[in-house]
């Protein structure tokens, strides 16, 4: 088996589009929640989100997620400094977790009266952007000739995408991979859909304190948007070309809850299974892990169950393991969340730090671990777990060593 290095990272986030800015703002505990500006949320019950600000480059698509994904891939390639290195695109591919393709309400109202879409209007007029276009755009731009992988496992999608890419490089089926995720559901239909199922925070008057994982007063997630892409590379290749190595991915595991459509297994069975599979894949015992970057959504259901699963995994050591939640600052990037949070962890760990969980003011008695509240902490050891749990019971975990 090959060892798998992270040699490039690209981020498009509500806290910036450069690794340094992203890391610094995370370590400063800066919240990204604010009133929605991308459209008028009018009477929707949630009117706040964590938006990506500024220009992320090419916007040939109506939907932001494809532009985010393409931009993050470009940033990751630049960070890896692959161009000019003796690393050809042969044996390389792309693996991305992507959000839903939603229809555009403006078009919908215009076209619903017609029996058929008028001639000259195609699906991309009607749909905001077909989700699969992102992987093909990235493959074309970087000349990646291996079959691209698209993951649609909801909030676990980009962790699955990175995990699948890791397995391909580790098994020797690929020399290197671009892997991550992109999403933006900050549009009328996306926000309304989450409002309908009461999944999001309604703390509209206090957006900077709305995302509060593991806090007693949490009331749902803060919707975010963005993309994150990694360059995963055979470690020997990376060393041979003198690449900077951000981290090493050691293992990946996934599982299905087989339980509830909108609620996790009450004993955290699926989450525990995914974490154990990731550790087995890494050849690492739970006793060696000192930090977890949690899924930590700030929803009433997720946080205590994730806590329980971690307690079951670590046993008596659970209180010694630090757990943080990136969503407390950037919100929930849905299909891109796992990748953006893994980049958050690796960027901060590279500087020797664990970023804080902000807004944890009144701990929930059911959430009784060390969540690194308010201020950053020094990393104690490089081994960490990253969790992502999807709506519908998909669970994915990655074991990472950062810094190497």
């Amino acid at each position, binding site marked *: 088996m090959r060892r798998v290095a992270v040699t490039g990272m690209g981020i498009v986030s509500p806290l910036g589009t450069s690794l340094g800015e992203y890391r610094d703002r995370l370590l400063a505990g800066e919240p990204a929640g604010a009133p929605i500006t991308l459209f008028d949320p*009018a009477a929707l019950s949630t009117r706040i989100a964590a938006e990506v600000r500024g220009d992320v480059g090419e916007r040939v698509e109506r939907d932001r997620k494809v532009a985010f994904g393409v931009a993050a891939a470009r940033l990751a390639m630049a960070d890896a400094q692959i161009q000019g290195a003796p690393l050809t695109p042969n044996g390389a591919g792309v693996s991305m977790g992507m959000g839903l393709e939603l229809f555009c*309400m403006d078009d919908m109202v215009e076209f619903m009266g017609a029996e058929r879409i008028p001639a000259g209007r195609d699906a991309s007029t009607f749909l905001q952007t077909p989700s699969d276009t992102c992987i093909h755009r990235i*493959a*074309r731009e970087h000349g990646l000739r291996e*079959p691209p*992988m698209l993951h649609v496992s909801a909030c676990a999608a980009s962790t699955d995408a990175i995990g699948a890419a890791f397995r391909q490089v580790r098994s020797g089926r690929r020399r290197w991979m671009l892997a991550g995720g992109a999403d933006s559901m900050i549009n009328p239909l996306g926000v309304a*859909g989450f409002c309908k199922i009461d999944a999001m925070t309604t703390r509209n008057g206090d957006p900077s304190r709305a995302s509060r994982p593991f806090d007693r007063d949490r009331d749902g997630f803060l919707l975010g948007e963005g993309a994150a892409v990694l360059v995963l590379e055979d470690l020997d290749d990376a060393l041979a070309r003198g690449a900077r190595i951000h981290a090493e991915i050691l293992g990946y595991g996934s599982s299905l809850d087989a339980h*509830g459509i909108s609620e996790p297994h009450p004993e955290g069975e699926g989450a525990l299974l995914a974490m154990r599979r990731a550790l087995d894949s890494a050849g690492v015992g739970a006793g060696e892990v000192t930090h977890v970057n949690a899924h930590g959504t700030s929803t009433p259901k997720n946080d205590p169950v994730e806590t329980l699963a971690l307690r079951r995994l670590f046993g008596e050591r659970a209180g010694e393991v630090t757990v943080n939640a990136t969503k407390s600052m950037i919100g929930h990037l849905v299909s891109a969340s796992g990748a953006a949070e893994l980049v958050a962890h690796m960027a901060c760990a590279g500087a020797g730090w664990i970023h804080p969980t902000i807004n944890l003011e009144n701990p929930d008695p059911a959430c009784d671990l060390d969540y690194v509240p308010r201020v950053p902490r020094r990393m104690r050891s490089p081994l960490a777990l990253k969790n992502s749990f999807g709506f519908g*019971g998909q669970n994915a975990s990655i074991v990472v060593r950062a810094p190497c």
Partner: protein
Amino acid sequence: MDAGPRHHQARAALAVTAAGACVPRDGDDTMSAVVPFLRVPKTRKFMGKQDRMAVIAAGRALAGVDLPAEARIRTGFYLAVGFIPFERPEIETLAEHSAEAGAFSMARFSGEAIHRVNPLLTFRCLPNMPMFHVSANFGVMGGYLVTYPGAGQLYVALQEAACALEAGEIDRALVGGVADQDNFLVEFGLRRSPPCDGARPVDAAAFVLLEREADARARGVTPGLRLTALDVAYNPREEATHEETPNAGGHDYFGPASLPMALTEAFRERRSLRHRVTTRDGFDAASTWEAA
């Protein structure tokens, strides 16, 4: 395509030991047909048509399969789902109550339209929901890959299933495709991925149970088909917008369910199968299965 499909190097013989499909023709009632497969019948209200088709197909595939609880934990799930099928009545309701002078009004949408649609709509069209319903009703808890939206991606999922089996990460893989194509919104998705000339998009779901042949035979199970070649190649195109997928059904176009449908037929008839898809979004994939 300037490069042919790349061969998947098999380390262990893999075989199909069960298969099942659901092709609801006009008049078929998936609402009733799904009930025998549901652990909790009232969960039917959360299910869209693609969810029901997937559960029926998986139920038919797994009928008679001895799959104890400990085996389900080590059964992986690999699925390709077709274009997102929002139901037309729900879209019409949204559009009608969001319009003001012929244009979209956010005030009407947020204040009126969204209150007129069932919140369960959110659950009925998501591409990961067929996987949820199958896993919940049949207790499948292994690793997974759920992808979208065409026959090329199904091959990618199959390749990952084969690798996971060969690596011993799972003991069985439920591999399938589902596509609700008789749908207003899907019609527009298919405009960029039209089936080959003369083929008609058909609703379909199919699953096969794939496992290491030696393990199956050790349990006294005679496999139906053996995977002898699996090749998936890709050549990124300038215009990745159209797809052409021939399938075993001739004039029926099953989208991502193309290969599992053909496999189900071959499994039933105990005959060998050579299947190939060439898609306009750049996939060139083929597989060969011999009667075991």
